């Protein structure tokens, strides 16, 4: 099962490597990991996408909680939640017809063209991983020059929140 574990941890040097080290040392999967400071500069928020049986996920959350730098964590998949990922994608766009087609596709997927040259478009796209995958599929394969994905960020729906 795919799980989204959201972790609040001390914004200290080495905290990321403690988490990454834990996953590799114990043989857990990381599909994606994002981390950045929060509105409280002393804390970082990390979102980890992982897969495993219920037993493994239970161990992952316990082992994460055991790290001294981890303040709090929640498995977002236990409740309703929203997840988003951002992608920047650079596409070859030459000729009026091709350029118009890419613009249309970007509109359909609610992407934004954030940079353009006479031969390329760079599009910013936000959504679930599936949506980003679908956009990539929709582009002519040879036309994609570069993709950069942020990894998933997640947050619980409603009034539930992960804070101090």
């Amino acid at each position, binding site marked *: 099962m795919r799980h989204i574990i959201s972790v609040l941890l001390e914004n200290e040097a*080495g905290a990321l*490597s*403690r988490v990454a080290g834990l996953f590799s040392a114990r043989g857990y999967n990381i599909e994606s990991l994002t981390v950045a400071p929060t509105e409280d500069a002393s804390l970082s928020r990390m979102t980890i996408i992982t897969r495993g049986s219920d*037993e493994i996920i239970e161990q992952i959350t*316990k082992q994460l909680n055991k790290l*001294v*730098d981890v303040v709090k964590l929640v498995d977002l998949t236990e409740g309703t939640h929203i997840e988003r990922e951002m992608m920047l994608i650079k596409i070859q766009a030459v000729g009026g017809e091709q350029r118009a087609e890419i613009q249309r596709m970007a509109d359909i997927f609610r992407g934004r063209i954030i940079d353009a040259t006479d031969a390329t478009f760079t599009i910013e796209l936000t959504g679930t991983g599936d949506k980003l995958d679908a956009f990539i599929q929709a582009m002519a394969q040879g036309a994609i020059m570069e993709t950069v994905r942020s990894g998933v960020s997640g947050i619980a729906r409603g009034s539930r929140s992960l804070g*101090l």
Partner: protein
Amino acid sequence: MELNGGEIIVQFLKDEGVEYIFGYPGGAVLHIYDALFEQEEVKHILVRHEQGAGHAADGYARATGKPGVVLVTSGPGATNAVTGIATAYMDSIPMVIITGQVSTQFIGSDAFQEVDAVGITRPCVKHNFLVKDVHDLAITLKKAFYVASTGRPGPVVVDVPKNVTDPNVRVPYSYPKEISMRSYNPVVKGHPGQIKKAMDLIVSAKRPMIYTGGGVVLGNASESLTELTRQLGYPITNTLMGLGAYPATDPQFVGMLGMHGTYEANMAMHECDVLIAIGARFDDRVTGDIEKFCPDAKIVHVDIDPSSISKNVRVDVPIVGDVNVVLNDMLKELKTSGAKPDAQALKAWWSQIEQWRSKQCLRYDHTSKLIKPQYVLEKLYEITGGDAYITSDVGQHQMWAAQFYKFDKPRRWINSGGLGTMGFGLPAAIGVQLAHLDAPVACVTGEASIQMCIQELSTAMQYMLPIKVINLNNRYMGMVRQWQEFFYDSRYSHSYMDALPDFVKLAESYGHVGMRIEAPGDVEGALKEAFAMKDRLVFLDFITDQAENVYPMIQAGKGHHEMHLAPECAAPQSAERELA
């Protein structure tokens, strides 16, 4: 008061009540060593190799319950200490390791004796710190001691760059008495509902079994465990790490369990209907094949570390908390509820256990002309009145010590259980002897293990530590040889110890007393003579039977009920003749 970094470290250690630090000087810690000079309160023990510093501090911690403290230099000082740190980590031993580091401006430049100590030790510490500013030094040290000694204990590394201890930079110092960390709050009290649920299950048992581990020793919970076990009248087994938590001479004690556990302990595990696991972590050497582990049992598990619960074996009633607090709450619950175990079922269960016990699974050949290692340990037990501190290395001798020395008190049995570190015994004995200067301390070892940290004989001489080294010398890496005999068709690949030193002369060259004992009839006399020498380290080199194996044994992939018994036990008829 204004102090420089080196002085802050020394003053902090004094304020923290640290008696000994185990260390080895080097470039990056010279400022700290200068602050240690000409002061008496914090006694520095100079080891001969940083691994020895780790094990000595570890032995001190195991014998006292107080954190052991290590001071080593950067680079090789830190890497040499890693085995000691990992050993402590696997057995949850509170330790604080101060490693020197190159000055902050050189970090990352591949400077002389630079190593990423925080990175290298990360997987084998409870936590670690790099101190970049002298202002943070005292509070970081306080955090280190706090984290190391609370919750599930463990080693904590504090990496201190040389410029942080610059003698010319003085900052205000005051001892941080209190500390709180928002991200670290170990649970102490067990959930009352779970405790009630557990006690209901426990008293309803027909075939109960209590299985306890190192957590009871670490949590100073022997008294409450003994009280609860006696009130219930249930059989109890200890893991290798838990020996001494319950008196081994008590009839309710059925011996150690696991790979080299007793027949009665392992059979009772396999047949029990309620298993009460306390401060134990279901290690693979304890459980055997998980699929065959306690097939009929409901399991109660008390542990301070939530991640220990349902890690290897799914449990029915988990209780997270300090074992001593939980055990006392269990005793209260038993008193309030007035519930009584099923006396009739218990009687039947005990008669079954006595039947298993009558196999006398630890029997060995007493008629041999060769010294049997088991015999040496039996005599060691007798001569020390069962009250010595016994450290051990790793291998056959370790298992025999665990089987044959009946520990009635906690913190008397000091061995590397989790990591299985050869070389642990002698330096650990140094730490133990320093903690208990007048107590008898013996290091049970073998000719292979002892050579891994033999240089510490020099440390023992320097501080006049009257350790008794019990070297069970069978000219083999005994446990490796045993596995090769059983599983590799007796192809003894590189397990023979060729070109051994003359241990008697070696001990003498360090200034100690050496003895070689070659006949069973001389064992007792030699031990008595050695223990009578109260101010000397005596190295007793027992030349033992090369072919002796540790029994019982559960092979990998087998269950508790599938033990391989000693030849003396496997043939019951001849065994009975021998008894008659």
